[in-house]
């Protein structure tokens, strides 16, 4: 399982966090930038909510189109104005958009 320090070592990482199934913030690390604990808590809730919606969509898509491969959802990323929050498996990392390496983040989150 990924740890917060390894997530913070990703290029452009400004925060890393872990959260419960309900989206409550558990642990976090903050780098330089305007983010804070409250934003990370909201972010975790946002990602849990959207993962749930995406799971519903993947299920519906699978049933209507007979196309497998989306379910189960393995991660949700919010591409914000300056930052991207990549989340999977109860952990997340916030990356600067300009240098965001989504694949490396997913790999780290699934390690």
């Amino acid at each position, binding site marked *: 399982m990924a740890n917060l320090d390894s997530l913070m070592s990703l290029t452009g990482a400004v925060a890393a966090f872990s959260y419960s199934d309900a989206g409550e913030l558990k642990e976090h690390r903050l780098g330089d930038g305007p983010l804070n604990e*409250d934003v990370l808590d909201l972010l975790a809730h946002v990602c849990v909510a959207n993962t749930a919606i995406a799971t519903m969509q993947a299920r519906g898509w699978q049933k209507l189109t007979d196309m497998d491969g*989306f379910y189960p959802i393995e991660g949700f990323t919010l591409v914000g104005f300056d930052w991207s929050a990549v989340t999977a498996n109860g952990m997340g990392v916030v990356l600067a958009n300009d240098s965001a390496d989504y694949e490396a983040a997913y790999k780290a989150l699934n390690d």
Partner: protein
Amino acid sequence: MSLVSELASTPGVLAAGEYSFRGDRFSYEGMMDNEQARLASIMCRATTMATHMQTDMMDQFAESCGCAPSRGWIVKGRDYSVCVIANFFCFVDNHNASINDVVKKMRTSIGDTEQALV
């Protein structure tokens, strides 16, 4: 070459498309039929609406935190992922496409466009 054509011809991309924020129009290219593109447009529009609301709320709690307005989102499934920036969507095969390249292409072309949701 339009962005949709460019994305659709990228290795590992299954299909790409554009939908109107009003929800009444869509266009697409790639390995998808008209009905699938319609479903995809409805789903992408719904999630985009949600992320806009969520980032606006985060911005209210922490002004200028860099979250809002939302530029887009990515959802990663077991074999396929969906990348959405503004009102463009792209379905990619996780094993044969680079999400980084796709998102970079999308952000470079449309990342800063006005995203007024009607």
